[in-house]
């Protein structure tokens, strides 16, 4: 289908007719700014096809503010070698005319022809809506709708599928889908979507499991029952055996025998212990008698010892007595040596004292002389000091008055100088002898007089000159001077001097005296720190001390020669003392030893006496003999007892009484054990019989057999259902697989077209198409392998691009099926970036080789490289014939 001419009149801004007659068979680019009429043209084309000429739902096409207009559109296109001319007028005198190669149709018939050709429907009532648009809805992309493709594909679905060929349609018509539904339904009776058992199949499976576990339980119970029966049988045979053999009785007999033997041994043991006791007593007696005999023997021995000891003590005493005389004389000598040494020591000590006193007397005398000197000197200094102090008092002058005087004097002198300088100077050189009187004072010769006041010069004979000094200052100065002089005079008077010099002199003298007095005071202090009186007191006390020393010297004996020094004398005394002390100790020790020896000699003699009397007692000998006899008897008895004990112990040991005791216990316990076992077994038998009675009545094995048979049946049923479910699953899978395979096969042409375009945009990418021919998953090769994304999840721009590619592919498909294809793009690809746009333009250009494409844009600069002129709407409308 190739659009060749379009004419619009009274449509929105094209109030005047606009005609475009030179459409190219490929790409046609129209540009213009916003509201220049691009969308109006698109609307006009759409309305011509989609809207019924009678429709009142096209009022938006009216020129603005002109409700009386009748929008009119004429279209002319070629399809399959036929020329189609379609003219529609809306709203006023509405009509529709179609001319196909000279064949004319009008009204609704004409509209149906057009709808058939392009593959869309008219709306039953009102304005046309998207669901009616069919193929044009897919290929005519409205502004901003490029990315929305799902609905458009859906509404064009039938047309697309029929374009894919008759076979795809047959899938549905032969009932394959119905079959799949039926199998799915059948399968869902057994299995859930995820393949888990459901419904009766699940019930059977659950019951199967419960039966299996029930059967297992029954098996266990049967096994338990059987083992209990075996146990019963075993217990019974044991019971009968025990009942006939009664094994515990034999054990009881054995226990009694052991008991008897143990009692025998016990008796022996008692006898043994009695004998052992007798033996102990006997041995004690032996010891006693032996002790007595030994005591007799000891008395004899002791008597000999005492005699010997007495002799020794006497001998010792004699030796000691011989030492008595020498010790006494040594003591006397030591005493006399000590006395002599003590006398010498006393004398020597007095001599020493005397010498010391004499040295002290000498020292004191020396001090006395020195003190005397000091007293004299100090008194002299004191006198001088008094004198200086009196003088100083006389020349004391007030320091501040002096200072004022100095200042006043200075002022006075300055005033005098100023007076001299300002005073009227009267120089005179008088002729010898001539005399004049100045203020009654004669002047002679030459000289100069200073006049401070009005003066009168009397020149004898001549009269008198009145000289009056000029200016107020002179008088003022004179008054100041006078004042200063008065003050000086008053100060001098106050200071009681006649001049400043005299005052200065007095002040200087006062200073000298001050220094002299200071020196004298220091000197006096060095001679008598505490004053002179204290010095005198000290002197007196020394004199008294000297007197005392002299008195003591008089008391001491006079000096003697050849006396040892007191230290030496003291040492000698000490030595003599030590020697005396040692000698005295020796003497005392000797005395003690002597006393002891005498005591011992006495004691030994007494002891000897006593023993001798004992030894000679006549009863003693008799008792000693009797003791000897008794000892022999006792020893014989002990020997006999020992032999008996040994023999009996052997018998006892051989009987092993402790083992016998164990035997008694062992046999007894064993018998009890057996009896208990027997009784317990009887109980167990009763219990077991009762239990088996109960268990037996339950018909366990019969029930088990029933369960097992039921299980078998159920397993078979389960198997059947499993087979059925498996069969259904297999069938469903296979049907779906085959169907999908077929669908893919049928979609191949579309896929081919899609891929042709897609390769230009994304090399090695593939876009899946679903059963409804919707674009689905996009698989791209990006760096690290394939990346897949659903169409709906792509970015806006990518969706727009994919949407356009898909539409172009659909167009190719339709074209192959000889269906008309006209592609209208109103402001397409505005969301594509530069690089993608380049690729998309290649794609569009490629599509333009096969399809007529009307592309409206407000960005003509982006479409300069499409190889076709860009027509501006403004110029078109200007060119159009009116």
């Amino acid at each position: 289908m190739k659009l060749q001419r379009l004419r619009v009149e009274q449509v929105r801004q094209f109030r005047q007719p606009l005609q475009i007659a030179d459409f190219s068979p490929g790409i046609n680019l129209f540009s213009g700014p916003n509201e220049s009429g691009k969308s109006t043209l698109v609307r006009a084309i759409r309305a011509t096809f989609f809207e019924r000429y009678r429709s009142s739902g096209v009022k938006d096409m009216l020129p603005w503010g002109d409700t009386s207009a009748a929008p009119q559109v004429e279209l002319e296109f070629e399809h399959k070698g036929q020329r189609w001319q379609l003219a529609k007028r809306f709203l006023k005198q509405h009509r529709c005319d179609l001319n196909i190669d000279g064949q004319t149709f009008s009204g609704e018939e004409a509209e149906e022809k057009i709808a058939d050709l392009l593959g869309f429907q008219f709306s039953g009532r009102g304005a046309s809506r998207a669901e009616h648009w069919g193929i044009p809805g897919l290929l005519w992309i409205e502004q901003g709708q490029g990315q929305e493709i799902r609905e458009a594909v859906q509404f064009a679905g039938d047309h697309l599928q029929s374009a894919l060929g008759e076979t795809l349609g047959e899938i549905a018509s032969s009932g394959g889908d119905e079959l799949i539904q039926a199998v799915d339904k059948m399968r869902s009776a057994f299995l859930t979507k995820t393949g888990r058992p459901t419904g009766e199949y699940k019930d059977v499976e659950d019951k199967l499991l419960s039966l299996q576990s029930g059967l297992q339980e029954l098996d266990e119970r049967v096994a338990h029952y059987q083992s209990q029966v075996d146990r019963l049988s075993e217990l019974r045979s044991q019971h009968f055996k025990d009942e006939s053999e009664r094994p515990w009785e034999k054990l009881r007999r054995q226990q009694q025998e052991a008991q008897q033997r143990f009692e025998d041994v016990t008796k022996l043991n008692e006898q043994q212990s009695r004998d052992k006791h007798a033996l102990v007593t006997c041995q004690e007696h032996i010891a006693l008698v032996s002790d007595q005999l030994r005591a007799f023997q000891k008395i004899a021995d002791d008597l000999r010892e005492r005699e010997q000891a007495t002799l020794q003590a006497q001998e010792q005493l004699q030796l000691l007595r011989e030492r008595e005389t020498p010790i006494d004389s040594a003591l006397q000598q030591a005493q006399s040596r000590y006395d002599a040494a003590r006398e010498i020591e006393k004398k020597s000590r007095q001599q020493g004292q005397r010498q010391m006193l004499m040295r002290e007397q000498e020292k004191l005398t020396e001090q006395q002389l020195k003190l005397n000197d000091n007293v004299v000197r100090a008194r002299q200094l004191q006198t001088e000091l008094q004198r200086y102090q009196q003088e100083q008092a006389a020349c004391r002058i007030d320091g501040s008055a002096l200072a004022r005087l100095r200042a006043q004097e200075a002022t006075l002198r300055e005033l005098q100088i100023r007076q001299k300088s300002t005073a009227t100077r009267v120089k005179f050189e008088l002729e010898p002898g001539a005399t004049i009187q100045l203020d009654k004072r004669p002047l002679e010769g030459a000289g100069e007089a200073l006049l401070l006041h009005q003066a009168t010069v009397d020149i004898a004979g001549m009269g008198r000159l009145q000289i009056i000094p000029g200016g107020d200052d002179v008088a003022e100065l004179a008054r100041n001077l006078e004042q200063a002089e008065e003050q000086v005079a008053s100060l001098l008077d106050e200071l009681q001097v006649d001049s400043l010099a005299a005052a200065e002199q007095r002040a200087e003298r006062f200073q000298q005296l001050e220094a002299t007095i200071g020196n004298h005071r220091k000197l006096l202090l060095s001679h008598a720190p505490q004053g002179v009186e204290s010095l005198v007191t000290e002197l007196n006390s020394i004199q008294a001390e000297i007197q005392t020393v002299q008195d003591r010297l008089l008391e001491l004996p006079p000096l003697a020669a050849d006396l040892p020094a007191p230290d030496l004398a003291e040492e000698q005394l000490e030595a003599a003392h030590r020697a005396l002390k040692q000698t005295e100790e020796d003497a005392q020790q000797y005395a003690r030893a002597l006393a002891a020896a005498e005591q011992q000699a006495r004691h030994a003699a007494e002891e000897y006496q006593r023993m001798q009397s004992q030894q000679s007692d006549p009863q003693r000998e008799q008792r000693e003999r009797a003791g000897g006899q008794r000892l022999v008897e006792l020893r014989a008895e002990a020997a006999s007892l020992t032999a008996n004990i040994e023999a009996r112990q052997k018998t006892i040991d051989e009987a092993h009484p402790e083992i016998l005791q164990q035997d008694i216990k062992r046999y007894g316990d064993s018998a009890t054990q057996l009896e208990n076992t027997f009784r317990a077994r009887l109980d167990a038998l009763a219990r077991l019989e009762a239990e088996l009675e109960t268990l037996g009545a339950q018909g366990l094995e019969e029930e088990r057999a029933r369960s097992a048979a039921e299980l078998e049946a159920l397993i078979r049923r389960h198997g059947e259902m499993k087979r059925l479910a498996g069969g259904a699953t297999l069938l469903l899978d296979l049907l779906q697989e085959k169907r999908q395979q077929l669908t893919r096969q049928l979609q191949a042409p579309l896929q081919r077209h899609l891929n042709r375009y897609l390769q230009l945009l994304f090399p090695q990418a593939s876009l899946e198409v679903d059963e409804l021919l919707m674009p689905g998953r996009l698989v791209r090769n990006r760096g690290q392998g394939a990346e897949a994304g659903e169409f709906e999840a792509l970015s806006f721009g990518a969706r727009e691009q994919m949407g356009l590619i898909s539409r172009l592919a659909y167009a190719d498909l339709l074209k192959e099926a000889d269906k008309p294809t006209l592609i209208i793009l109103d402001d397409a690809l505005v969301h594509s970036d530069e690089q993608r746009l380049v690729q998309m333009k290649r794609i569009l250009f490629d599509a333009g080789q096969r399809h007529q494409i009307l592309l409206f844009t407000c960005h003509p600069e982006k479409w300069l490289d499409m190889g076709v002129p860009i027509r501006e709407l403004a110029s078109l409308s200007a060119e159009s014939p009116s």
Partner: protein
Amino acid sequence: MKFLHTADWQIGRQYERFGPEDGPALAEARLAAVERIAKLAVAENVDAVLVAGDVFDAQTVSDRTVRRLFNATEEFAGPWIMIPGNHDAALAESVWTRARRLHAVPDQVVLGLDPEPLLFPAQGFAVLPAPLTQRHTYGDLTAWFDTAKTPPDLVRIGLAHGSVEGILMEGIDSPNPIAQDRASRAQLDYLALGDWHGTRQINVRTWYSGTPEQDRFKDNGAGQVLLVELAQPGAEPVVTPVATGQYPWLQWQQALLVPSDLDQFIQRLEQLGQPSVLQLELSGQLDLSGDQRLRDALNQAEARHRGLLYDASALRLYPTEDDIAELHADGYVGEVIAELRERQDGDEGEMAREALAILARLLLDRKSPGEKS
């Protein structure tokens, strides 16, 4: 004298694997068989009924089952002489001790629970029982027969349960051995044996009676009792098997290779007049219509018989071209059919067969309303 020899009643055996309806009926049939034996005993006017063990299928059958068994013997006044077998061995506690405790053992029943001769001078015979007192024994319990004394004027009959050595190698319940020449060694007039569920003669005087009501798919002459007649001690016994079974147990293996095989098989199934217990093993291949016919036939047989088990895992479903055309299975559905056909011989062949059957049924169902209209 004249007596009935029977064994292996296996009372209490369960057949729930045949479903809730047939299972209890099959269990019931065993008691019915005992009742029929009682009737036969009366009809034949025998001197005794000897039961050679495995009267009960298990030790712990329910009290009710115990009572019903003994009740079933009522019609014949006895004596019934029963010994325990390996299923109901005379253990310390057994179904027998319980029966006694329940006072369920009627006067006409004599239990041979001990290896001691039982004398019936009035009827002119003595029975040497060899009861099993353990579940399994490895010694010959009939050995004592050799030296057992019985009055010479009485017919001497051995009653035992086990396997005769050297003869019965397979299908034996227990290893309890019995010497092959016991009858002659112990100078028995007759040795009545149990354990083998089919009737079988070992020698002139030694017989297995088999079970009176068949309970396995083994065609070995089960479902009979033996009527034994002995003119006098030492005379050769005259043994007559008498059918007592209600339901034959049949096991058929059928290969369906050509269409006529199926016709024959269905015919054979239809001709089976007596209600039976059937086990079918089918192999070969069928087209869709054949499959449908087979299903119909099996459904009918299931309704008519006491039990039906069949295994069709070796059966293949091969829809013919006509079948497929008939099903209007064009396009990919046709491909699915072809693939499933092939897959039947693969690892999950059974699954594929099932899938194919489902598909065929669905297609047929879909087609059928169209045909009717």
